[in-house]
């Protein structure tokens, strides 16, 4: 049980910080509302006006987010490799070049198909 005590303490501190911040903000913060502030927070979707028939929402945000994830994953692999680059030798270099080339193929496709243009 003792081994879990720090986790419980951390959980308690986190909860206190979260609740405390919200309470403090509502007590001390200035209240100047504008339209953007009153909107519901949604990633990439305009929550109002609702599209006709519940239909479509802009996909641009998702495209950007997806690209971000692709490069994020690339970094996840690149970073540890770069740190121990010399320990892996030529094999690591070749495999990493192949990996980057593969991701680059996807990047080239997205670029040529206009995936990087917002409008």
């Amino acid at each position, binding site marked *: 049980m003792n081994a879990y005590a720090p986790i419980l303490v951390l959980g308690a501190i986190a909860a206190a910080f979260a609740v405390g911040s919200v309470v403090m903000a509502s007590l001390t913060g200035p209240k100047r509302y504008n339209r953007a502030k009153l909107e519901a927070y949604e990633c990439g979707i305009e929550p109002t006006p609702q599209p006709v028939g519940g239909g479509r929402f802009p996909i641009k945000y998702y495209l950007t987010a997806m690209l971000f994830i692709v490069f994020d994953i690339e970094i996840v692999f690149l970073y540890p490799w770069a740190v121990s680059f010399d320990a892996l030798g030529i094999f690591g270099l070749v495999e990493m070049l192949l990996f980057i080339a593969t991701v680059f193929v996807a990047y*080239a*496709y997205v670029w040529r*198909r206009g995936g990087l243009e917002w409008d």
Partner: protein
Amino acid sequence: MIATHALAAAGGNSPSIPAPHIEYGQLSPMLVVFGAALVGILAEAFLPRRLRAATQLGISLAGLVGGFVAVVVLAAQGHASTRAGLLAMGSVAIDGPALFLQGVILLTAVLAVLTYAEGRLEPRINGHRIDAFAAQAAAVPGGEQEREATREGLRTTEIYPLTLFAVGGMLLFPASNDLLTMFVALEVLSLPLYLMCAIARRRRLLSQEAAVKYFLLGAFASAFFLFGTALLYGYAGSLRLGEIADVVSGVAPVTPALAVTTQNDALLLIGLAMVSVGLLFKVGAVPFHSWTPDVYQGAPTPVTGFMAAATKTAAFGALLRLFYVAFPGIRWDWRPVMWGVAILTMVVGSILAVTQQDVKRLLAYSSIAHAGFILTGLIATDRRGVAAVLFYLLAYSFVTLGAFAVVTLVRDSKGEATHLSSWAGLGRRSPLLAAVFALFLLAFAGIPLTSGFTGKFAVFQAAAGGGAAPLVIVGVLSSAIAAFFYIRVIVLMFFSDPQPSGPAVAVPSALTATTIAFGVLVTLGLGLLPQYFLDLATKASIFIR
């Protein structure tokens, strides 16, 4: 001071991490196909539109044929028998079953890609040839954007690289000797298939619905597989199939750190059950079959043919390897369950097929019933069972491809006329096409002198030899039920009057004609002279550990 020393040691100039050994030569079938897929993406990115379709066809055929040549060369060098072995640090196994199934998948894919490129069935739009795939898959069905894309004669040529990626995953699936590699292969083959289902040119909504259903259920099944993998790792302390088998049989020493979970039978049984769910979903076995009819119906017909043939081959390969390499030691636990699944699959598939009114749904239920027949071979748990399943998959792939290729030819003004009522009297309008389709149906039914008979005979013989005689009785009875609806379609085609406003039979180009001709050839060849291929399957029936 000590910390500095540690850092210096870690950052030293000598390679301190041993590089894994990768046998690129033996992995070449997969590498060639993946390479072709990447070239296809680049072609998609940089080539002008009018050149894309032809170039993509060329790249795909080059990649697939190249992969097939690599498989044949590997087999000729003895990698299917004496030199079979584990590659890539034990995560891939290249042996008889792997190479046999890779060959079948690659040949199937070559013929499927030919049907993709068929440009003669749809009427030309403004002089542009179009194919079975959506003009612009991202446009709203029936919307202004879609109309514009159709007017410009756009085509979704991405279907070719997507197919190549799926084929790459399928090649890895039956060869993976490690649960995590198997999972990666499962995802690599599934994700492109979900997309490919969604891009039919006609009946866009049905096609998108099929893709969403397939994706949701497929993701669910993948999650089952992954969770089962985690439990099996807890049980065995390893993901390698061979090492799991050692723990199952009690040969492997228990690692002290894992003593709490290792050899906990609950983990083993639940893990095995969950991994099996993931794989049985892919082969379309009851009770994990419910996606099959909707997806087969909604997907563009050339894709349905590819999916029905190649996915089933790959997934049965993985299922065989899982049960024969990792879990032969507890066959008395999994065999009764697989008995139940096989019986349900055969009976439900055959009975539900009787009521179908749509030819694509009919073929979907028939594929479920066939999954049941193949499962009886798996239950034999000996070499003959493996050989029978390999042969069945070879025979079934070509019949299925051919049958779906025939479905693409029967058309009316709204595209393919898949309702069975419009197939009435087809034998009088187009005797050749109806005869070919009848041959495929007879092969599905397992009538002698077709490949279906040889395959069915082989799996039933293996099952009976493996002590599953009651299963064979159920199999023969369901075959009889299945024969009823296949023959009903034949009767409908030849002995009823054609509707006055019925569909016309389109004349295909050499592409689809080649696929159908090859299907007929293999169906008759494996029915009349099966010995060579039976021997080949028998020679290829030993799994390496």
